[in-house]
């Protein structure tokens, strides 16, 4: 196999030029504006951004669960194993969800059905996708419980009998029960305490390695990204403004927004007298600025930034930045 083909075989999911808008009461919100990214098999891609940047919309587009209306995919491709998910029928998508792609949502409190036992909820997804008997589904469900660190005896218990961290483990068990190729994790630990968060993230990393699952991790916490992801995409106003390996992003951040984010976070390691927040407010997605969406808040803004298309430049191997100024160095 040639190098090219090998490289392509590594790519599990490829998003190209995704555009999504939300329309309500006449107002149009440009949630995702031309996002392109790739996830390789068994690897983790972190999607980092603040509220409203469009990260959850991207994840929901991949899974095809955007509410339509008010959301509408205007363009782009999402290729999984040669198939464009945006053009796949709902019937086919149902076979893919839970089996090839799974999603973990942010709030474990509301992600589980309070009227079904946790075991049954895991068994449900197994019996939907695997052709097996009820007993086999139950057995596999108990295996999954053990895999996430919950004793199998707790199969017949209900969600209210579990703490937040344990509930999230059940959610993860459901997501990984059918051994999906891709896991979408939308802020999976934001609602959890720090010590529980550490346990859950470690467990996800473990399972990923064991089952060779690729992951797209959505978060606003750069610390989690640093510990769990291989590649990172920084999202602002529906666009990827920087895409790089973890090392490149943390050691050589290039985009002013990324640098601004690092300046806003107090560090555990050293003392900073004053934080340097990014001035101004996040952009209004109904009225995006011309040119670079970040330019009204950027200290390095020049004339070229205020209009036209901003190029997505490769500043070093596999390190891309959407900026009119930091490219050609």
């Amino acid at each position, binding site marked *: 196999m040639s190098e090219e083909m090998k490289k392509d075989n590594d790519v599990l999911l490829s998003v190209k030029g995704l555009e999504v808008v939300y329309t309500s009461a006449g107002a149009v919100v440009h949630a995702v504006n031309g996002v392109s990214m790739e996830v390789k098999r068994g690897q983790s891609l972190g999607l980092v951004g603040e509220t409203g940047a469009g990260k959850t919309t991207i994840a929901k587009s991949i899974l095809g669960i955007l509410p339509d209306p008010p959301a509408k995919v205007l363009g782009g491709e999402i290729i999984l194993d040669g198939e464009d998910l945006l053009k796949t029928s709902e019937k086919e998508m149902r076979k893919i969800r839970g089996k090839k792609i799974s999603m973990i949502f942010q709030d474990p409190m509301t992600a589980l059905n309070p009227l079904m036992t946790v075991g049954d909820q895991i068994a449900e997804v197994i019996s939907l996708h695997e052709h097996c008997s009820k007993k086999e589904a139950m057995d596999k469900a108990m295996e999954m419980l053990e895999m996430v660190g919950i004793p199998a005896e707790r199969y017949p218990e209900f969600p209210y009998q579990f703490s937040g961290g344990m509930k999230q483990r059940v959610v993860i068990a459901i997501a990984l029960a059918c051994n999906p190729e891709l896991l979408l994790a939308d802020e999976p630990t934001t609602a959890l305490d720090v010590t529980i968060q550490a346990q859950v993230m470690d467990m996800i990393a473990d399972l990923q390695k064991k089952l060779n699952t690729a992951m797209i991790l959505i978060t606003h916490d750069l610390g989690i990204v640093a*510990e769990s992801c291989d590649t990172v995409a920084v999202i602002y106003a529906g666009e990827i403004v920087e895409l790089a390996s973890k090392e490149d992003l943390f050691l050589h951040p290039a985009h002013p927004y990324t640098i601004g984010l690092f300046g806003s976070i*107090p560090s555990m390691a050293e003392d900073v007298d004053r934080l340097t*927040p990014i001035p101004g407010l996040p952009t209004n997605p109904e009225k995006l600025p011309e040119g670079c969406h970040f330019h009204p808040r950027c200290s390095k803004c020049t004339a070229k930034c205020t209009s036209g298309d901003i190029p997505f430049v490769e500043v070093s191997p596999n390190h891309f930045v959407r900026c009119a100024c930091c490219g050609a160095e």
Partner: protein
Amino acid sequence: MSDVLVEAKHLKKYFDIPRGKLHAVDDVSFVIKKGTTMGVVGESGCGKSTLGRAMIHLLESTEGQIFFKGEDITKVDKKKLRQLREQMQIIFQDPYSSLNPRMTVAETVQEPLIRSKRYSKKEVEERAEQIMTTVGLDERLWNSYPHELDGGRRQRIGVARAIALNPSFIVCDEPVSALDVSIQAQILNLMQDLQEEKGLTYMFITHDLSVVRHISTHICVMYLGQLVETCPSKELFQKPLHPYTKALLSAVPSTDILHKKERILLRGELVSPVNPKPGCRFAARCNYACDKCHEPQTLEEVSPGHFVACCRAKEIND
């Protein structure tokens, strides 16, 4: 110690619930000096929010004493309490539920001034304008309602309301946890500036360790209602002594990718704070637990200014 502004002595707050007594805050003692920031950290259920509210008498404590400028506020009469209240204020976590949705920005900021009955109508309006400028709220927003504004601006309204009466002590209950990172930084800077300008003393409650490190001079670590460790903030991060503090610090994901962290994984689950057994509540998950841990622990000064409630603190750290 004339520079002590606030002191808690053996403070306890228990709630009566159907199953028994919930020990939300159990025998907590500490001192906050004027002009400093005492960070209170801990995870959910540790009692930090209850502690904050008890400190300014929004909740009546079950036992123990709270001294403000030398006076025990648990024993003063209603009239004196009203006077003292003006000097102790609070900023809340949720920018959505902490503002009355039917009051404009101006009305919310003016209300404390009106209730104090010390200012004429004109003075109230002028002071409100000044305060809004101080916290960075544009005058354009005078007649705006909270639902028209974003989280950061709403939180500024909360700050404005808290500083309206020129208090000397402000309890900040997770004031930036609900905000985006870039807005967090703006509000943190604002609070630091206010502290410098007005000589404020803060009790800063949070679960975010990097924020607490940045803003506090001293830190209290709480676990299930018990105060397990307190010391100057730099020391907490350089030399944590209590096993829980160590585990907590090791659990925080770090952006320093060059140095991999040694993670201390805790086993087991939290014990229930309802009708708890005596002794250290962390013992059930602690890797160093021994028999002595089931006896009530006391805060001991292990090194100057550094207090730990752990019978094995000295041996673990030598």
